């Protein structure tokens, strides 16, 4: 970073910053970075292009970390002390979604954990940009002797998402076709040593490509030159993940919400439920047994008016029963959708609720998520 006046916090740049600017992106501050919220064609066009063909996202602001120790068992046990997922049971090349938990079972951050195919002494983690400094401190404070955390800040991260992603990436890395959803492998992509996972944050098939920072620009240019590919900013990334029913940290999940309340119990595998031994396990195992007091639900409002974060949710009697945590317009549906938390009595599919938007009462129905079906390649 260039020097800046004392007291001001300069925005950080990803290795692709100048390319976003050259593409005419509208840049906004996000998690301490100057990031593209949209390019020239706009959020809806970018969103629809990702659903129809392939979108290219710069997600280099996210934290890429490596937990390093003597062997898989040691690093897995170190991480299992912080997350409720079965890490020990990962096979080489397998990726899993999990959450860093506080002692009350609240979510400090959500993250992707990968056991690499090519080395048994480490786990690769991808954490949220806004949380990464805190995550690094938290993880380091809790590591046992002999296990360390490396910050891979010499790497960029690109996401290539959409039904044409496989065809596009396979032109430059044929082995990409061999990956299935939530698996990963090191591979050469157009001559750069990358680590590629088949995962993403859109509900579409696609890949996340970890690339050395000094090769990121060339890879971005190469993928963007493919006829199926358009650049996609943070605006469409948010509308895509909302349609896919995926949580946004700091909004749909936070240090108060537990994974069970958030509908993420699927990410707590059986062995961990039997053994416990993760932060907040008392609360979480109790919630798994008896059900949580509140649950994250999907809502389909009537009409066209979007109900955004913070919107009050009331029951038929007009009592406050919850709050919207993410909401907006779903381009694929041409209609608004929302997610939020309600008292568990009101979480059943088909329950009629009321959203209060600018003083107006909008009828809404509890609907299953995702709002738009996932199209992962399993």
């Amino acid at each position, binding site marked *: 970073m260039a020097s800046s006046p004392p007291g001001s916090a300069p925005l950080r740049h990803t290795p692709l910053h100048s390319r976003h600017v050259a593409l005419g992106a*509208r840049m906004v501050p996000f998690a301490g970075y100057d990031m593209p*919220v*949209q390019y020239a064609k*706009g*959020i*809806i066009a970018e*969103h629809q292009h990702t659903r129809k063909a392939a979108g290219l996202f710069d997600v280099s602001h996210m934290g890429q970390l490596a937990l390093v120790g003597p062997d898989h068992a040691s690093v897995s046990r170190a991480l299992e002390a912080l997350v409720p997922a079965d890490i020990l049971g990962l096979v080489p090349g397998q990726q899993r979604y999990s959450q860093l938990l506080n002692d009350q079972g609240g979510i400090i951050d959500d993250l992707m954990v990968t056991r690499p195919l090519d080395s048994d002494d480490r786990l690769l983690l991808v954490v949220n940009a806004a949380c990464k400094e805190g995550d690094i401190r938290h993880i380091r404070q809790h590591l046992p002797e002999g296990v360390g955390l490396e910050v891979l800040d010499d790497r960029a991260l690109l996401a290539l998402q959409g039904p044409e992603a496989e065809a596009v990436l396979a032109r430059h890395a044929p082995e990409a076709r061999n990956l299935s959803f939530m698996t990963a492998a090191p591979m050469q992509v157009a001559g750069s040593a990358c680590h590629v996972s088949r995962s993403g944050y859109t509900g579409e098939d696609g890949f996340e490509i970890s690339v050395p920072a000094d090769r990121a620009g060339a890879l971005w240019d190469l993928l963007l030159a493919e006829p199926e590919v358009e650049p996609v900013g943070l*605006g469409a990334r*948010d*509308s895509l993940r909302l349609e896919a029913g995926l949580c946004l940290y700091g909004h749909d999940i936070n240090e108060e919400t537990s994974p069970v309340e958030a509908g993420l119990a699927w990410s707590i595998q059986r062995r961990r439920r039997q053994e416990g031994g993760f932060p907040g396990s008392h609360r979480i195992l109790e919630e798994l047994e008896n059900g949580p007091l509140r649950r994250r639900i999907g809502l389909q409002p009537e009409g*066209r*008016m*979007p109900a*955004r974060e913070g919107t009050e949710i009331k029951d038929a009697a007009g009592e406050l029963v919850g709050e919207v945590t993410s909401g*907006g*317009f779903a*381009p694929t549906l041409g209609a*608004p959708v929302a997610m939020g938390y309600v008292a568990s009595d009101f979480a059943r599919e088909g329950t009629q609720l009321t959203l209060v938007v*600018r003083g107006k009462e909008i009828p809404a129905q509890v609907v299953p998520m995702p709002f738009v079906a996932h199209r992962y390649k399993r």
Partner: protein
Amino acid sequence: MTTYYTKDHEYIRVEGDTGTVGISDYAQSQLGDVVFVELPAVGKTLTKGAEAAVVESVKAASEVYAPVSGEVIAVNSAIEETPATVNEDPLGDGWFLKIRLSNAGELQELMTEEQYEDYLKTIS
């Protein structure tokens, strides 16, 4: 027929004692894709600077303020059905409402088209 602008990027195109209100081309470009518009009831009396309508993009909701005081005499219901018209033709088919001016003197507090162009240069 003269068009005036506010610092909040509303316009009002005045013919006689009525004006057509909408948002400027700059405003629609800053908002991005418009997905919802909420219009006032015909007959509602607005005071200058009060909330007249709401326009929502994919990202956020924004208020549209009355450029002058007066009574709402028509609203453009077509943009409730096809909000993208606000992006495509903000100064034409993407208008929001028509107002009967109660105090034409308030127009003097607004910017002319030329002044608005200069104003845009100072904020971009």
